């Protein structure tokens, strides 16, 4: 089972397909879950404290807006952990954790820089594209180390 970063990190479709084909999707939910379960922090809603943008300095310089650095504090460690990535390049309406275009650009760049295997594709807009979309993801995931049918 490989750890596969999904982009958008909030994607239902990618989260489902990666898990369906027996790999572990790394997405926003994991980062958020980790934080909201941390006891003793009172910073609703996401339990992201002003410390997180400071941790984000590892991924983006101080002149980068705090929202980018705070988001990178969630995604940076997940990207480092990732062994592969599936990217949908036309995810224009992914909100919240994915709602900042600058962060999204930095996430994509970091993934492409990391040297892990990456599949880039677009959302399907027809049955035919749907068939290709699912087939491409299945093929990509099957080809990953430790991948394949369970």
């Amino acid at each position, binding site marked *: 089972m490989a750890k596969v970063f999904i982009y*958008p990190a*909030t*994607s*239902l*479709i990618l*989260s*489902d*397909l990666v*898990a*369906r084909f027996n790999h572990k*999707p790394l*997405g*926003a*939910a*994991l*980062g*958020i*879950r980790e*934080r*909201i379960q941390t006891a003793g922090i009172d910073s*609703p*809603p*996401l*339990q992201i404290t002003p410390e997180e943008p400071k941790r984000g300095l590892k991924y983006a310089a101080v002149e980068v807006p705090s929202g980018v650095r705070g988001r990178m504090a969630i995604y940076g460690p997940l990207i480092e952990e990732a062994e592969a990535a599936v990217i949908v390049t036309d995810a224009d*309406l*992914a*909100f*919240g*954790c*994915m*709602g900042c275009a600058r962060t999204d650009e930095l996430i994509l760049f970091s993934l492409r820089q990391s040297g892990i295997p990456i599949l880039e594709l677009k*959302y*399907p*807009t*027809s*049955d*035919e*594209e*749907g*068939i*290709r*979309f*699912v*087939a491409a993801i*299945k093929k990509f995931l099957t080809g990953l180390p430790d991948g394949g049918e369970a």
Partner: protein
Amino acid sequence: MTKYVFVESPFMTPGELALRAYEVSEGVLIKETCFGLQVTGAPEAVDHLITEIRTFDPNHIFIKDRGFPPGDPRRCRANLGGARPGYLGHEREFRLLRYITRGLEALERGEAVPEAAREKIRGLDIQRLQELIDEES
């Protein structure tokens, strides 16, 4: 651990999905929603339930991790006055699920994957452009 279960199926409503899920829930908390379910419990129990749920209608049921447990006051619509931003993202992808379903069905049946039509967008031929300009003037 919480997971979303989305159902976009002609064979099963969220209500029916919930009823069948309850039968195999084994201590996992199930909350019915407008799009399907949220299931919460110990990770192994949730994963076990998810495996079961997927078998109900594999090509029409979709699963996603959720950071928050259901009804968490920090994220609950009742307290925010409006949907959390993630809801709208789900709305966006929900529209596409039928294509994914089609892709899963094709995979199941071993259908050949259609070649992507190679669309080449060519610029307008310069001579044709000249003709068009001449026609207009």
